[in-house]
């Protein structure tokens, strides 16, 4: 097990190197001169030269990569081209908002997706199953962008029961400690702010949870069906155990393993989905920030944030793999 853990951890290094090459290379893959894109209609040749020099674009490419990687290793993701602020500090300040949203979404997706999947498998081909499968299919194919707009329109504009965006209402005075607003409000015992924060969280979390929920429900159903057809389930039933005990204690525990992998993989999708969800709901996390930076061609931020997100996804997948081994003692790695 320990050997596996070390081996698995080492595979992360080439992956991250590859990611860094991609992230670094993409600035050179986009057509056009980044300096000119940034300056727009009013660019004079002198300005373009000046900006190119400032971005280091006038050096040979291998040199640029060397400088870049040297900085990244020291934890320096550079400074924003537009605003001049350090990228890493800005990233860390915005990250809690994204974590809060992604956590809410994954909790929602797991809390609803697993029961739906189980019900679907137990009452296979019933009306419950058909509805659940239809819903899962719709959920997987629904563009977040459209869904987010519809949710905001219906609950925010038509019914006016939930806000159309943001983390807190305008003019809410609240000094967060960690930028995890829900955590901070709870720790500070500030209930009005907590309620306000939860109201703002409902729609974006629901939008972001839709796809993972559908995937988890489908995966749970498939995995449950497989386990339910095993012989030890028949044995359990033959022993006269109640259906609840058979399903929950014997079947679900075994069926959950592949689901766990899927949940781990969803983290990457959640972070990608957060870019659209945060933009639609003006949620001040890294997704909205990346979107704005793409628009304003702030390559330093896009590079820094992409690298950061890649590290998170690689890290979560590593943890899932290790967890998998820990949860299921039958799995042996040699």
């Amino acid at each position, binding site marked *: 097990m320990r050997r596996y853990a070390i081996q698995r951890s080492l595979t992360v290094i080439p992956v991250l190197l590859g990611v860094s090459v991609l992230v670094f290379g993409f600035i050179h893959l986009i*057509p056009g001169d980044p300096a000119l894109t940034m300056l727009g209609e*009013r660019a004079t040749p002198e*300005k373009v030269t000046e900006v190119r020099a400032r971005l280091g674009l006038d050096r040979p490419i291998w040199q640029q990569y060397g400088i870049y990687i040297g900085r990244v290793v020291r934890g320096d993701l550079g400074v924003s081209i537009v605003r001049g602020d350090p990228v890493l500090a800005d990233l860390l300040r915005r990250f809690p908002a994204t974590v809060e949203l992604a956590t809410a979404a994954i909790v929602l997706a797991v809390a609803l997706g697993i029961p739906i999947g189980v019900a679907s498998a137990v009452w296979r081909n019933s009306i419950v199953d058909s509805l659940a499968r239809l819903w899962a299919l719709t959920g997987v194919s629904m563009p977040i962008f459209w869904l987010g*707009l519809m949710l905001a329109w219906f609950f925010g504009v038509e019914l006016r029961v939930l806000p159309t*965006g943001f983390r807190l209402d305008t003019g809410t005075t609240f000094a967060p400690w960690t930028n995890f607003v829900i955590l901070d409000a709870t720790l500070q015992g500030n209930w009005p702010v907590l309620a306000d924060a939860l109201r703002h969280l409902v729609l974006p979390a629901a939008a972001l949870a839709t796809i993972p929920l559908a995937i988890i429900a489908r995966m749970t159903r498939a995995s449950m069906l497989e386990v339910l057809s095993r012989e030890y389930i028949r044995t359990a039933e033959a022993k006269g155990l109640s259906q609840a005990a058979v399903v929950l204690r014997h079947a679900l525990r075994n069926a959950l393993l592949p689901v766990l992998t899927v949940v781990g993989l969803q983290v990457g999708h959640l972070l990608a989905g957060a870019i659209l969800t945060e933009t639609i709901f003006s949620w001040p996390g890294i997704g909205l920030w990346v979107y704005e930076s793409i628009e*304003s061609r702030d390559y330093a931020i896009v590079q820094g944030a992409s690298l950061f997100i890649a590290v998170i996804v690689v890290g979560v997948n590593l943890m899932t793999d290790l967890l998998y081994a820990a949860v299921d003692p039958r799995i042996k790695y040699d």
Partner: protein
Amino acid sequence: MRLSRLALLLVVGVCFTPMPALAQTFVFGAQGEPVQLDPAVITDGISSRITRQIFDGLVRYRGSTTEVEPALAEKWEVSRDGRVWTFQLRRNVKFHDDTPLDAAAVVWNFERWWKSGHAQHENQVKAGQTFEYWEAQFGGFDDKSVVTKVEAVGTHTLRITLKDPQAPFLANLAMFVFDIASPRAVETSGTEFGKRPVGTGAFKFVEWKPNQEVILEANPDYWGGKPKVKRVVVRNIKDNSQRLGALKAGEIHAMEGLNPDDVAVVKRDSSLQLLLRPTNTTGYIAFNYKVKEFQDKRVRHAFAHAINKKAIVDALYGGTGLVATQFQPPSLWGYNRELRDFEYSPAKAQELLRQAGFAQGLSDITGEDGKKEPLIFWYMSRSRPYFPNPKEIAEAMAADLAKVGIKVELQTAEWAVYLDKRKNGQLSLYMLGWTGDNGDPDNFLCYFFCQPGASREGFYANPALADVLLRAQKAVSQVERARLYRQAEQMLHDDVGRLFIANNQPPLAFSKRVKGYVPHPTGSEYFHTVEVQ
């Protein structure tokens, strides 16, 4: 049981917590995040909308015009040769940090913008910022600038000496970039001043929550009268539809950046009102004069008769567009009202083409090297105020051209590539446009036509036109200048140097509760006259 009841309560509570009242607060929905709030180094509309509330300049634009009226300077006079300007500053004005606004403070601001060795100039440049507009409007830094001396000749008297007379001088000073900052605050904050701005304006800076909102509060001692609202919140809502949703839901009071299709939605909604910014933007089609066919004026003339501008404006601008007859938008004082535009007439266009020897139509063009190639019409990949739907507009124009026998291939390129090709004169026929900075005709015409034969202008060379424009730049009397600009527009029109298609009046949507908002062509409006009922 108890747990589920608690959960139910929580859900109900979460859904029905009442919205807080916004009576004393004006909430504006912006399209994005400000870059920073130091007016001297910014160039974008989102940032300047906020700095305009915090700062004042020596002069400002009156109402919704681009004419200039007193602001921090109560009055001024100019020497007969147009080189020496003397400003009397308003007395008893204080910056938000309680330091006094006097001639010395204004001199300090000018030196910061103008002198590259000034500590507060140098540090900005090192941090990657540029004093771009100073360079553009006043000829450059240090010795290159048209400004040669700025001095305090009394506690509240300021004298500025210029190398040559500069006709747009006051219009330049009214731009948001030349708003006066508190010297002490700039010195204390250095390059961070853009995050903690201090001016003399109607609102004081309170807080900037990144990617969320900027909060300002009323300055009760404002020299121009107490603002009508206590707080201003500028919220950043990236998506146009979502911003409209927030407006309909009552979460914001005003917004910019309306999709052309949503203009009708706002008009239909009885709780909303639509305001239009006076137009300050022109979209055009430019020819490349290295193309042999385009050197024939009759061919250019045929294009002018072939395109149905009115139909395009009616169909694709959401009702906020205007047909352009010349480069300057109608809000500028150099606009030529006498100018008769070419009428839409496919028959005339065909006749002109026939005369030019293209009775069979035109689909190939001849390059400098004599090689034939298909005629490509380049359209923009990005929406700009002057062409809000570039692709649809280009398709409509291509269809019009096809009717008279001009067959174009539509092509686009990524924005940077597009601008790059345009700069190098590699586009044979293309769309682009301009949005004015300071309401001066020079800002429209001279940038494009003062250097005959420039590659970025498709090698268009009209030295007589350049001569008129350069004279207009130096003339002191506005009457004389207006005459020269009208003449320039007529010359450009008669030569069919370029085809001007449309002006747009960018739409703004407001809750009906908002009164007193005056839209301005430059897009930088003041909030102190705004009331929320």
